[in-house]
């Protein structure tokens, strides 16, 4: 009885989570003009997509911004986390630690608006920066840094501070400690911080809308603006392509991970049989 209940519960959750995505993928192969009415299967909208310059360039821009802002976020986030975690006493530490997480709780609209106001007045005084890729990047990096700081901080916190001391004891100067011990141990956290900030940037619409200039529309902005004019299944096609790419990336990485795991287990077994000889 219990088993049936838990199984049906699981299926319900899966349906709830993935039904919309499946519907979206299925309807991307719909021939009809209308997103919600099924006529018959075709790849018509993929043809349209390939020739939709606006959509293609929006995807390219979104990818570029997401990649760069994720890099910036991880870079600044790591150093912020490091400073907060390893240096317990410096002027303004409390201020920094609370300010670092403020963008997490601040509504995007407020952050976007205040950034816009700042950039507008900056442009009036110095004629720089022109609103476009750079300003969107700035906004996304600002938000991403806050998230990356949280991810890296939690990893740093559970890392044994004794390891740093051990490295120093064995002759490492502070920078070498960071390079040889802290960084390799942080690597998984850095990867997940990168992926998190990448997706954050990739699907952000609020900040981008405030910060973009003419000719710079990210994918979510284009989707959003088209939705107001009535959607057309090209959007489904774009989404399907994105999902496919992401799925392939996830499958490949998990395949490599499990292979590395298997290899490691094999080595352990080898070591055991060696020590028994």
């Amino acid at each position: 009885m219990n088993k049936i209940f838990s199984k049906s519960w699981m299926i319900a959750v899966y349906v709830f989570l993935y039904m919309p995505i499946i519907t979206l993928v299925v309807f991307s192969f719909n021939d009809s003009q209308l997103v919600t009415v099924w006529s018959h299967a075709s790849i018509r909208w993929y043809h349209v997509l390939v020739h939709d310059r606006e959509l293609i360039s929006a995807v390219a821009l979104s990818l570029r911004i997401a990649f760069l802002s994720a890099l910036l976020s991880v870079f600044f986030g790591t150093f912020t986390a490091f400073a907060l975690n390893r240096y317990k006493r410096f002027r303004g530490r409390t201020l920094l630690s609370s300010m670092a997480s403020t963008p997490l709780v601040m509504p995007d609209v407020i952050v976007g608006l205040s950034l816009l106001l700042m950039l507008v007045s900056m442009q009036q005084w110095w004629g720089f920066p022109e609103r476009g890729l750079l300003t969107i990047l700035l906004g996304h990096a600002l938000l991403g840094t806050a998230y990356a700081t949280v991810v890296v901080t939690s990893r740093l916190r559970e890392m044994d501070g004794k390891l740093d001391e051990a490295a120093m004891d064995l002759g490492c100067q502070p920078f070498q400690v960071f390079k040889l011990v802290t960084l390799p141990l942080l690597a998984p956290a850095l990867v997940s911080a990168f992926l998190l900030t990448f997706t954050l940037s990739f699907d952000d619409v609020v900040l981008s809308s405030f910060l973009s200039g003419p000719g710079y529309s990210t994918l979510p902005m284009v989707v959003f603006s088209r939705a107001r004019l009535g959607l057309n299944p090209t959007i489904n096609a774009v989404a399907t392509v994105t999902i496919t790419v992401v799925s392939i990336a996830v499958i490949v990485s998990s395949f490599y991970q499990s292979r590395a795991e298997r290899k490691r287990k094999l080595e352990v077994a080898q070591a055991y049989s060696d020590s028994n000889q």
Partner: protein
Amino acid sequence: MATAPKAKAVREDLLRVEGLTKIYDGAVKAVDNISLTVTTGEIFALLGGSGCGKSTLLRMLAGFETPTQGKIYLAGEDITHLPPYKRPINMMFQSYALFPHLSVWENIAFGLKRDGMPKNDINDRVESLLGLVQLTKLAKRKPHQLSGGQQQRVALARSLAKRPQLLLLDEPLGALDKKLRESTQLELVNIIEEVGVTCVLVTHDQEEAMTMASRIAVMSEGSFMQVGSPDEVYEMPNSRHVADFIGNVNIFDGVVEVDEPDHVTVRCEECVHYVGHGISGNTGMSVSVALRPEKILLSKNKPQGEFNKGKPQGEFNWCEGEVIEIVYFGAHTTYHLKLASGLVIKAQELNSTRDLSCGLTWGDRAYAHWSDLAMVVLTQ
């Protein structure tokens, strides 16, 4: 290390600490004006409860804490303000602090690579260390694939790799279970002696300190209470605190009645102690007499024997009480005796035959007696 030849020149004291003090937040004295010298080849133990300052002292030696006052000299050279990575001192950390992303081999080679040692020399050095700690077969494993005892050996090999002039051990056996401890203790001492490195070791476990160290400093509240060889500290504690901290002890409070150069008597409420040596005190002084449980003999009948060079027992060195608790340890049994004054003393009897020969049971009246050389008179 460039400073290595100097060690031989001043062989007598490798490590000299003068008036070392560490004050936290301007108020808490973690280490209070400590001076000590450690001779080359010695294993020196800092023994004390938690918060006694032993770890702070060790961390100052390693260079992780800066002393508020005082100096540290290693082989005659002032290293007080040298950062840890420039000191010819290595440390074996409490929970080993092995680098989880590096293999056993790389862990041991870590410090050598930092020194820019040629690759072949590193290979040779690491191989010989792996042989020393018997881990040659596990060289490729990561720390999490090792048992606690193996990790401990890797940590030891890593701390010995750079051939430090001074090796610091922070609770070296703290993370091992009891059975493994005993075998590891001796193994550790053997390796340290084989390498011939001078050690300062921190522990809260008196057994660990007694078996491993050649000298022990008993610490409390940031100061040394007593420094001496294990048997000195055990048999001749200089204060109630030390007597109480190391092993079990029965303490009688009394007043010096007879003060002769070759003996004294101390009258306590429970009995009169006849101590077979002189003390630095005078008649009428109030003192404590410390008596270890294993030095007390129990009998059912009033002791009639001679306790000292033919002198009859008389009124000296015995008391009578009721057995209120019997704790059986296998090798020995501890009896708790409640005396007329209300004081409970412990007497430890060796179970030398399989029938528990003493024949005492709960509620029995028993007599405890001891020799004139069994106790220590404590004036503080």
